[in-house]
């Protein structure tokens, strides 16, 4: 491109329309919207898969599908929900809100930003394609090892695993590039006067998330690369005959996998105080304490991975180390909890949908956190490991802590993004149905897990029948309730009462000073933040 050419293109002119607008955009709001829409679509894809699983588990015995397909569905459900529903939703919020919150004109590296997004649909296609290929007689279906793809099972699995490895590579590049963009934006594009200790907590949460992603995603990339060479190029990283060790894979995987929990949850923990403060009409309590707690959890997150594999075999010293270090995370996490509670303490609270979801998140995620403490106990974990107790535990953290928190954020910020208020009544119905159905689904799983039902089985002993039936009924109600979510979102995009710039009367921050919806480009001249 010549200089004259560039001068032509560089001049402000109308952006491309239709599909080309979305394919070529460099605008943080457009890209944020694409992330959120992609996340919503994949949320329903992953949800549909697990409803098939719950239908199979409705009764003991095999009714609907072969165990091979069952195994594929649970693994792909997890990968879709974690990598393609939760993480993109959080990244979508980051794209939309971080520039608005820190007074930046856009993300620091706008084209890189678009690349990060457009890597996601190809990754989803790669992950899901083996289902379709199997119908044409190519391969044996998608990844069938569960989302953790432990060696040596994963060394023997069919071609679906190769597709999953390459999907993970694309997702990883997307996450790392997205994280670099966020870190650079926060470091370099803060408005004058927006010092680090004035950053909104959502930005802080995301900044530390981005650090964690940059630290651990490359390790996952390395691990799956070694898995790929073990599968196809004759290496012996995870094969004892060549001096390797399958447990090595577990260490590498969980070095990524444990921080991943916080990667998914930090953006939610960052946005929670915004919502609590807005609807309790009080300032955030303990801002500094929460920032320090983020730092401490972020650092601890990369040194506690062993608690996921306590039963795989490690020395007593290592067991004790991983047990105590894991339990120590409950201290900074309690700081966050108490700050949230102190924020709403004696506040003039109202219970709009975002507030309901935020409060529901706190209560239910609290159960997830406490059961995590139980699992961290090396002696007790030997009983609970690989049981439904674990399934219940991580759904209380990842669904209640993650997805319900994301939904709180959607209801909180959607009026800002669309310029229309949400349908409060439907949204409240959505909350109550979700909260009740969620507990109906997962509370029984604690009990069947304690009674000894292993996870990842398509069939189970008769004694677990009633609780599994309850669980399946809960899951279908939970799935149906999410259709309400879809209706509220679509209604809000298409119309509704106009939203003022400051959508919620108690909300504080730069993002509430721009109109709803904000113009395509905001803060082209930098705002100055006072004391």
């Amino acid at each position, binding site marked *: 491109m010549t*200089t004259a050419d560039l001068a032509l293109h560089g001049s402000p002119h109308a952006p491309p329309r239709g599909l080309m*607008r979305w394919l070529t955009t460099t*605008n943080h709001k457009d890209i944020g919207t694409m992330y959120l829409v992609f996340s919503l679509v994949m949320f329903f894809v992953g949800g549909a898969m697990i409803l098939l699983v719950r239908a199979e588990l409705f009764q003991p015995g095999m009714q609907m599908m072969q165990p091979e397909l069952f195994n594929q569905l649970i693994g792909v459900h997890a990968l879709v929900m974690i990598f393609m529903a939760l993480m993109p939703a959080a990244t979508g919020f980051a794209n939309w809100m971080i520039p608005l919150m820190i007074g930046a004109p856009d993300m620091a590296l706008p084209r890189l930003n*678009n690349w990060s997004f457009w890597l996601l649909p190809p990754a989803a296609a790669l992950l899901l394609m083996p289902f379709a290929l199997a119908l044409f007689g190519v391969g044996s279906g998608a990844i069938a090892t569960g989302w953790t793809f432990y060696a040596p099972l994963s060394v023997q699995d069919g071609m679906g695993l190769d597709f999953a490895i*390459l999907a993970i590579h694309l997702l990883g590049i997307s996450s790392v590039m997205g994280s670099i*963009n966020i870190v650079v934006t926060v470091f370099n*594009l803060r408005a004058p006067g927006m010092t680090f200790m004035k950053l909104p907590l959502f930005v802080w949460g995301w900044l530390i998330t981005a650090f964690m992603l940059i630290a651990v995603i490359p390790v996952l990339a390395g691990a799956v690369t070694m898995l790929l*060479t073990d599968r196809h190029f004759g290496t*012996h990283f995870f094969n004892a005959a*060549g001096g390797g060790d399958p447990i090595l894979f577990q260490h590498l995987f969980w070095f990524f996998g444990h921080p991943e929990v916080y990667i998914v949850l930090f953006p939610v923990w960052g946005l929670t105080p915004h919502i609590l403060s807005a609807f309790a009409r009080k300032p955030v309590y303990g801002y500094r304490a929460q920032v320090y707690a983020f730092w401490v959890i972020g650092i601890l997150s990369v040194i506690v991975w062993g608690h996921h594999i306590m039963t795989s075999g490690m020395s007593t010293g290592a067991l004790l180390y991983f047990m105590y270090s894991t339990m120590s995370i409950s201290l900074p996490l309690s700081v966050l909890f108490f700050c949230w509670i102190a924020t709403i303490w004696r506040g003039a609270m109202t219970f709009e949908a975002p507030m309901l979801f935020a409060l529901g998140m706190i209560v239910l995620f609290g159960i997830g956190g406490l059961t995590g403490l139980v699992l961290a106990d090396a002696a007790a974990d030997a009983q609970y490991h690989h049981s439904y107790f674990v399934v219940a535990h991580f759904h209380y953290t990842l669904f209640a802590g993650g997805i319900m928190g994301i939904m709180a954020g959607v209801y909180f910020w959607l009026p800002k993004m669309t310029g229309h208020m949400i349908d409060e009544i439907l949204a409240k119905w959505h909350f109550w149905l979700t909260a009740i159905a969620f507990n109906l689904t997962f509370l029984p799983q604690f009990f069947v897990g304690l009674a000894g039902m292993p996870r990842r089985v398509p069939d189970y002993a008769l004694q677990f029948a009633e609780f599994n039936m309850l669980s399946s009924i809960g899951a279908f109600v939970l799935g149906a309730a999410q259709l309400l979510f879809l209706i509220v979102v679509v209604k809000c995009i298409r119309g509704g009462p106009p939203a003022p710039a400051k959508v919620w009367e108690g909300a504080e921050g730069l993002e509430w000073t721009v109109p709803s919806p904000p113009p395509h480009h905001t803060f082209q001249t930098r705002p100055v933040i006072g004391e």
Partner: protein
Amino acid sequence: MSETEQGYYVPDSSPYPALLAGGMFVLALGFALQINDEPVGRWFMIAAAALIGYVLFGWFGSVIAENQAGRFLRWEDRSFRWGMAWFIASEVMFFAAFFGTLFYLRNISVPELGETQLIWPGYRGTWPTSGPAGQPFTPMAAWGIPALNTLILLSSAVSVTWAHWGLLKQRRAQLIGGLALTIALGCLFLGFQAYEYHHAYTEMGLNLGAGVYGATFFMLTGFHGLHVTIGAIGLAAVLGRAIKGHFTPDNHFGFEGVAWYWHFVDVVWLMLFVFVYWM
């Protein structure tokens, strides 16, 4: 114009990011088919490589053109610098995964295999090893070609810094000469490594399948070699720009980004030399 009044440069719509993602999708798909004995995969890979090559030229080309047109001032320059720094940080963690694997295997899994004696009685569990069921092989000695390669890469770090001084002091010939020398040293390094690989495969019984020694040796040195190749391509691009008269003492992030990357690759090699070849 002072920086506070100056707007940040937000580029117009660009087709390259989505094209690159599409190219990577086709590449990944082709690769997955190829390794599963579907020969159609290779045509996907060739097409994808062409597309990715086109995108790299176009995307970097437009960034360079924007820079030459004066769109990037100090504020944008800082974004590039932070971006490159964090990218290198992620690369450090990528290599950390393989080094961690090496340390785990050498210090934990291989000695434990030697202690167990259940399945493979008589296995000693000492390093280097191709494992209890592996074939005999000769480990790579440190003080031949690898030591020479260390010298070559360290010299190239000096020559790229010398080129940088030339750039800062506006001595164009020194910049161009230093860059050319650095690229030549990089290619020499790669040539020696190719020779070493050939030797290992044909005469030493050392290959990817030679147990964990072979696996860690080739994965670590192979990914390093790949990074040297990428760095050399980056240096070649910077050399081309230097010949065209780009870069000024206060605007040469393109040069510095590649130079940082080159130093990073150099440090990784020192780690490799110590932990893979020597100790």
